[in-house]
């Protein structure tokens, strides 16, 4: 189990820290949306792709992806472990959440990298 890899207090420190830092990045993200370009058009395809092409902004998005994925999947793991107990179940939940977290980060990072390198066209 993850608890046998890391002490639960270390996992929870990461859990709290990712939440706090993610809030900071979300504020930066919203501020950029308000101050750069038209807010009303921010979800248009060209506008979204243009965001990824800005390296600092792509870094902000990547950081948000990692922070929210780590926090969210650990939160899911905590909820699932409270619903039911047992060694096999807990191991499945812990490794399942870890795998899902890695998969989501990998897929999201791939999207960010491809868009920022101009590999996504309309």
């Amino acid at each position, binding site marked *: 189990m993850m*608890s046998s890899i890391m*002490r*639960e*207090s270390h996992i*929870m*420190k990461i859990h*709290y820290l990712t939440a706090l830092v993610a809030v900071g990045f979300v504020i930066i993200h919203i501020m950029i949306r308000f101050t750069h370009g038209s807010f009303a058009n921010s979800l248009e395809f060209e506008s979204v792709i243009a965001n990824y092409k800005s390296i600092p902004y792509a870094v902000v998005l990547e950081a948000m992806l990692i922070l929210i994925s780590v926090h969210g999947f650990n939160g899911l793991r*905590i909820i699932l*472990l*409270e*619903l039911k*107990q047992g060694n096999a179940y*807990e191991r499945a939940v812990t490794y399942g959440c870890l795998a899902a977290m890695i998969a989501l980060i990998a897929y999201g990072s791939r999207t960010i990298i491809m868009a920022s390198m101009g590999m996504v066209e309309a």
Partner: protein
Amino acid sequence: MTKGGALPKGFESPSDLGSQEKYEEVKSSSKTITLKISKFNPDKDHAPTFLEFPVSYEKWTTVLDAILEAKNYHDHSIGVRYSCRQAMCGSCGMNINGKPRLACFTKISELDSDVVTVEPMNNFPLIRDLVVGFERMFSTHKRIKPYIIREDSEISSGTKEFLQTPEDVEKYIQFSSCIKCGLCNSACPTMAADSTFIGPQGLAQAYRYIADNRDQGKDERLKIIDERHGIWGCHFAGSCSQVCPKGVDPAMGIQLLRGYLLGYRK
């Protein structure tokens, strides 16, 4: 009027009160409630049923008095655990009108209800009627090493008393009032879902010994509680602190304990 809960102990006859008039005055002031007692024997029954008894009470009558009146004069088979009758032993914990309380420490008059429903505590295995098993709570209590751990001892030759300042004592004294009645564990929402959670009773006792400056077992205990079903299972609902009959605040103890694990308390 039946005996038991209606008059204070030692005042069961007119001569006890000094005069027939005084006896009649006390007797006539009593009111009546309906006592509903949960009856369930897991070995025989399929579902709990409620027995109803009319019970007269005075302002000093406790729920335990009423249950014992029902047991003594109506149904001897009612299963109830009790001992000291003064909120010292922690035996008579039960759900009274839906809230975990000590039956000996809860007066009927303070419930402000014409119907008093008593049920076994939640989050404990039921033995029979109002009696639940304490094995899990006692085993988690034992697991957190509820004693002072240190190399030397007050009773070893050459050592003296371990003196503490009032400030040192203040850090843990409220937690040493725990009577292991289990009301906090019964009220805890995490205990209801997580069958392996240590529970507020065990965690508060872990804090009691860790905060004691005579103790040297902090690292041992922190290791025991630093797990998913240990201290991190607490969602800080605070219901444990609300129901404690001894004024212990387990929710606060758990938060203070987290400080040691998160590194902002030494």
